[in-house]
């Protein structure tokens, strides 16, 4: 409800207001007047319009001193994102969650476990001053769980803790200083058990298992062909272990949310990728569905805001329901780096057989991932790693087994690529090493093993559509002047201090949810709402977290409606308004939801009635070719796959082990690109993030089970001086079940950079590297040994 105290009358339900930046407008004419209520709307009429609420039928809008518009509220729809793409972000007008004002707002802080593993014996809570409240497991009205795939992760630790940083209490009150003081005074007595931090320690199960009887949170296996027959043909057997470490998302905006009561519901708005996940988490913990989740402008996600917002939202919902007032929780940077989800560290053990013709004839892969304290997304990461374990290669006989291990560390979760950056690094590195062992140039070796359009995949399916890997490889070699540079590298003076190296990585990414879960689990629905004046609004739950959906979705719809872009708006992802088109993960937004929007737009165009309001909804239907068995992992591992190739050139200083990245070239097949410029942003961003993953983003657990790197000074991501400009191209290879032929690409761009970088450094120093990040310390170790 909005009350304009300037007129001291009339209120209008917020839903029926036009797109008006009410609080900014009020401030403009009233000096330092504060925000009225929880309003965030944007008017496209001009920044200085004055809005006078007028009861019943509509709103008169002043511009300067003149009346300019009369808007019939019956025509008005939901809050939409400003259609001038990224204008609000660039001018500083966009209101992220920490920028928003709420009348009567209370602050909230988590009290987190300081014990990595143990029973909670007793909590000593100081006497709380008036206006301060503590919430814990005993305050949960519904179920004290976070419904992140499984329900093993409690919202509030209850009786036991499984990692340092686990949420035990939520403390709420008006003054952050008092909250800080209270947090410092809380003391918890634990009976500690021996913690396991590494996969090795998890397997050892000191003081018994953390989970079940064996600490295995999930496991799965897959075979193709006949592994024993394959090895029987091998003349060389090459074994290798490849490892990757933690990676932190380092979105520039930390996690945060505000909860408040409204119209009998608990509403949470905040920085998130998946409002319906947050909605569901609230419903579970409160035990009812009178909840609503709204995405605010989000300062980066990369998977880190896929499940972790539930960790904030569930306790917050409990407090909001109880206190019936707005409550805010914003993580500070150290807390965010220390305790939010991370990329799974992995260890891949390969046993590879090569026949007399130099072809890989058998590959046995056994790998482990560190799942942290709870399952969360590890099962799906495992599925992706297993079902795409052989990357872009056609290996006839394969056995692949993977385990997700429970440890007393922060639960690892989603991070751009979701298992693929790890798998691609390990497989690319191993294939290069196999080639070198048998005396073949790695690039030649890889080319000979590439899948073709006639191949059968690892999971026993035919390739859908055409593969253009040969063309891509030719093109990336051309772009990077690969042959000449390779010759230069080989001819360089071996005693020179600076050594040049060149590395290449080939990789893929399956788009959409794993297997056919889009069909059996997600069942996305997307809606187009047309007003009588012909303006159309897109209603989906996919969020623009920087990847440009607020442009690309509108482009798809505008094109198929044959309307100008300005006539198509997109609703703010609000579970009170939009249908569930699924989460913003798994590179699914364009190919799955974009396709639904294309279909919806085509239908709407066909059924268009001038002057009338209309609505079209499309529900996901699996394309006919897509078959999948979720138990045996046979069929199409993903609805469709995108491909990429990266070449990286480095100068390695053999005195310090430091590598300077001097050139980066990239080529992609994402079917078709909806917006070249927007996708270039994904290429640049994903590739730089991957280069960081491969080079400087070191994250180590110390002996207390917490990360040694917990500030932005110590967890090091690339600056503008750490990377060059990237030269890239996309090759068209339209996919019939994607909008305008597009597939997914948001994660693909993160899958190759680390492998290509490591290969380049290896090329420069002439020593094998099997783990990332390839830090200067590792390079010195490789060069000069013990």
């Amino acid at each position: 409800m909005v009350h304009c105290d300037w007129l001291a009358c009339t209120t209008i339900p917020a839903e029926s207001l036009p797109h008006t930046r009410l609080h900014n407008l009020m401030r403009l004419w009233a000096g330092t007047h504060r925000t009225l209520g929880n309003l965030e709307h944007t008017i496209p009429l001009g920044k200085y319009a004055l809005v006078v609420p007028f009861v019943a039928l509509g709103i008169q809008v002043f511009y300067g001193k003149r009346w300019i518009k009369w808007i019939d509220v019956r025509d008005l729809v939901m809050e939409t994102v400003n259609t001038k793409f990224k204008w609000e972000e660039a001018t500083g007008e966009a209101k992220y969650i920490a920028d928003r004002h709420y009348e009567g707002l209370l602050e909230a802080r988590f009290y987190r476990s300081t014990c990595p593993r143990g029973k909670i014996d007793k909590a000593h809570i100081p006497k709380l001053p008036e206006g301060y409240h503590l919430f814990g497991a005993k305050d949960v009205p519904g179920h004290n769980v976070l419904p992140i795939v499984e329900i093993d992760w409690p919202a509030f630790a209850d009786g036991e803790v499984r990692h340092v940083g686990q949420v035990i209490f939520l403390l709420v009150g008006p003054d952050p200083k008092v909250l800080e003081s209270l947090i410092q005074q809380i003391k918890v007595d634990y009976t500690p058990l021996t913690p396991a931090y590494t996969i090795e320690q998890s397997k050892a199960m000191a003081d018994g298992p953390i989970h079940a009887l064996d600490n295995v949170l999930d496991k799965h296996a897959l075979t193709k062909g006949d592994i024993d027959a394959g090895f029987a043909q091998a003349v060389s057997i090459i074994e290798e272990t490849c490892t990757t470490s933690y990676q932190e998302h380092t979105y520039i905006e930390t996690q945060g949310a505000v909860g408040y009561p409204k119209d009998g519901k608990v509403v949470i708005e905040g920085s998130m990728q998946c409002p319906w996940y947050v909605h569901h988490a609230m419903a579970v913990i409160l035990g009812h569905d009178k909840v609503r989740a709204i995405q605010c402008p989000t300062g980066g996600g990369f998977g880190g805001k896929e499940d972790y917002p539930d960790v904030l939202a569930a306790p917050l919902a409990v407090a909001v329901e109880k206190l019936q007032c707005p409550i805010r929780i914003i993580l500070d940077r150290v807390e965010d780096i220390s305790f939010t989800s991370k990329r799974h560290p992995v260890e891949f053990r390969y046993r590879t057989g090569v026949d007399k013709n130099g072809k890989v004839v058998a590959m046995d892969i056994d790998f482990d991932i560190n799942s942290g304290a709870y399952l969360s997304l590890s099962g799906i990461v495992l599925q992706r790693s297993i079902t795409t374990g052989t990357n872009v290669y056609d290996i006839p006989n394969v056995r692949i087994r993977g385990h997700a291990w429970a440890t007393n560390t922060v639960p690892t979760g989603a991070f751009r690529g979701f298992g693929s950056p790890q798998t691609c690094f390990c497989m690319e590195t191993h294939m290069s090493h196999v080639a070198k062992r048998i005396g073949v140039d790695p690039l030649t070796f890889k080319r000979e093993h590439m899948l073709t359009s006639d191949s059968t995949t690892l999971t026993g399916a035919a390739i859908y559509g055409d593969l253009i890997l040969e063309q891509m490889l030719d093109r990336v070699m051309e772009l990077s002047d690969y042959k000449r540079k390779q010759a230069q590298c080989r001819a360089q003076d071996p005693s020179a201090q600076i050594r040049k190296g060149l590395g290449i990585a080939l990789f893929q990414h399956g788009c959409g949810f794993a297997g056919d879960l889009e069909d059996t689990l997600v069942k996305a629905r997307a809606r187009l709402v047309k007003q009588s004046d012909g303006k159309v609004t897109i209603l989906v739950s996919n969020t623009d977290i920087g990847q440009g959906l607020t442009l690309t979705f509108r482009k798809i719809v505008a094109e198929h409606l044959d309307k100008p872009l300005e006539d198509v708006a997109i609703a703010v992802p609000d579970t009170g308004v939009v249908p569930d088109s699924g989460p913003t993960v798994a590179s699914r937004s364009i190919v799955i939801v974009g396709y639904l929007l294309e279909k919806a737009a085509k239908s709407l165009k066909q059924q268009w009635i001038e002057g009338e309001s209309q609505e079209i909804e499309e529900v996901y239907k699996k394309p006919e070719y897509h078959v999948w068995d979720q138990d045996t992992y046979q069929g199409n591992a993903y609805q469709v796959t995108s491909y990429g190739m990266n070449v990286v050139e480095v100068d390695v200083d053999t005195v310090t082990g430091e590598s300077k990245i001097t050139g980066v070239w990239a080529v992609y097949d994402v079917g078709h690109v909806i917006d070249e410029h927007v996708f270039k942003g994904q290429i640049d961003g994903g590739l730089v993030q991957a280069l960081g993953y491969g080079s400087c983003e070191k994250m180590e657990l110390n002996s207390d089970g917490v990360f040694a790197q917990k500030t932005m000074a110590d967890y090091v991501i690339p600056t503008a001086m750490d990377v060059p400009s990237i030269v890239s191209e996309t090759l068209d290879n339209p996919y019939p079940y994607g909008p305008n032929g597009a597939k997914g690409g948001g994660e693909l761009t993160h899958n190759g950079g680390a492998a290509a970088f490591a290969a380049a450094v290896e090329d420069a120093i002439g020593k094998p590297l099997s783990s990332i990040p390839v830090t200067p310390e590792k390079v010195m170790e490789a060069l000069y040994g013990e």
Partner: protein
Amino acid sequence: MASKVETSNITVEFVLNHREVSIEVEPMQSLLHTLRVDLINTATKEGCGEGECGACSVLFNGKLVNACMLPIAQVQGAEILTLEGLRESEKGQCVINALLEAKGVQCGFCSPGMVLALYALLEANSDPSEEEIRRGISGNLCRCTGYGMIVDAARIAAQKGAQLW
């Protein structure tokens, strides 16, 4: 833990975006906190609170600084320019438009800091090389763009705003 020592509030007067401001504050609270909470100027963002990310970049007497590291007591008598002020000026709009044209804005959280850093760069050097651009924004972390299109934005602004700088 030692009991907290209270700091007495002081009055700080300074010029914010060409307007005079007088405010009673804790002297050691940061300029960033003062802008965002006391003055409700939220364009300047908090990314780390430790002077590492540059999301809080503002101009302090014409020089680029991290507002999270500057205690408000040191702002007495100073001229502060934030994005709220910069976006009203022709030069500021030149930078903003260049950033949008280059599509160097993805999630947008680093963007206010980047606009300030690019502005400061062009004020000091109207035709920077790629290396100079990268050095100029070396204290502004971006996780979305990989910097490529922000470097493009600097070039576009230098070119299109050639008379301005």
